């Protein structure tokens, strides 16, 4: 078990160090979601009252699209110099790699969200009417839901033609309940109309189900030949 966590940590630290030095994924995600915010702000030009109803959807759609950028790069690094093949023949547990990649993506997307949320608040004149602290579990669970499936499907789409297009095609249909939970939960908190507990439970269930499924199937996917 120590080996497992050691490997996870080593891969995670390596990925974060690479990202810290290049900032490829983070810059691309930030600029992309900034563009989405600006374009949405132009096309809807909402009043404060309206924006409270649509902001949940806008925020999460922006993050979802931006996360695809990071997810697509996850495995691209390992393809260079056949690192992934080396990993495959080594006795290292496959799930350690998967977990490290998922946590890495989770950190990147969370940083993006932390940086972008203030911008959303400014552009859409948001102020929260419900219990604001509930946005934190919604954001954390929602991000994990996107990232855990995204990392899995990114590994799957490695083996396909035009892999960059494949990832959203695979990820979006499966993510619909999670996206619905995030959007509806965020809107419920922003408007304060109805409680968001149901959505937090939904996201939690989604996370547990798909984390388990990913961990159970990742080794098969990695070694599929």
């Amino acid at each position, binding site marked *: 078990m120590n080996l497992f966590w050691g490997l996870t940590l080593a891969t995670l630290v390596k990925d974060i160090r690479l990202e810290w030095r290049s900032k490829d994924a983070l810059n691309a995600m930030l600029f992309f979601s900034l563009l989405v915010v600006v374009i949405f702000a132009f096309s809807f030009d909402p009043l404060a009252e309206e924006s409270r109803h649509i902001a949940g959807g806008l925020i999460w759609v922006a993050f979802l699209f931006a996360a695809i950028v990071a997810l697509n790069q996850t495995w691209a690094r390992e393809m260079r110099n056949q690192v992934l093949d080396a990993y495959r023949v080594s006795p290292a547990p496959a799930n350690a790699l998967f977990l490290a990649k998922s946590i890495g993506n989770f950190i990147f997307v969370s940083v993006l969200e932390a940086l972008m949320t203030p911008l959303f608040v400014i552009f859409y004149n948001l102020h929260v009417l419900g219990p604001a602290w509930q946005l934190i579990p919604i954001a954390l669970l929602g991000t994990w839901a996107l990232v855990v499936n995204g990392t899995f499907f990114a590994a*799957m789409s490695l083996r396909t033609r035009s892999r960059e297009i*494949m990832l959203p095609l695979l990820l979006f249909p499966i993510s*619909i309940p999670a996206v619905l939970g995030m959007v509806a939960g965020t809107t419920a908190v922003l408007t304060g109309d109805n409680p968001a507990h149901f959505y937090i439970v939904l996201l939690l269930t*989604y996370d547990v189900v*798909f984390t388990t499924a990913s961990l159970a199937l990742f080794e098969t996917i990695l070694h599929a030949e």
Partner: protein
Amino acid sequence: MKRLFPILSVLTALLLGYALYLALVVAPTDALQGDVYRIIYYHVPSAWTGMLLFLINFVASVIYLIRRSQKADILALVCAEVGVVFCTVVLVTGPLWARPVWGIWWAPGDIRLTSTLVLWLIYVSYLVLRRFSNSAQTQMLAAALAVFGALDVPLVYFSIWFFRTQHPQPVIGGGGSMDPRMLHVLLISWMAFLCFGFLVCWSRFRLELLRREVEEAHALESLAGAEEISPKASVPLSRSTK
């Protein structure tokens, strides 16, 4: 087996014709909706058949993940393809009925509509994956995706369950009341659709099996061919290195 196919085709055609006759002529007109309701004799059997095929797809995918059997993989592929067709029929006939009865084509918050649409999206993405992936790993990847898709279905259902639902309650086991004559016609329609679905799956299964055999034969042939030519082919290579 091969001789059975034409016989079954004829029987299915007859059954489909009989079901159409029952649906259009014999079944009584609905008191509230009038003749428009008769579309359920296509809509509901398609939905049931489609869901059954998706279920078979899931079971076959799990069997493939455990046993790596080619036939299970082909069965999963075939069921997904035919299931998507039936599901498309459901999604097309639904709005056609909804427009005159509800006054709208589509009710976005409705649980059965939305979950059917999401199910359709999931299986279309499954077929896209199979189309875009060209290697030997496709089957494994597709099986994994099928498992993910099946896990997603209850979550989709619960996520929309929160909203008020507009769809008529299920006819069977949902406490809805239906004229027994209508139910009779509905069940016969379903039988006809099941036979039709089975027939299409069967011929598609045979086709896919043949396709893979041909592919395998080609691969073996080219392997054998490569061994024969290889000494000759290496001549220009060795020259160029000089």
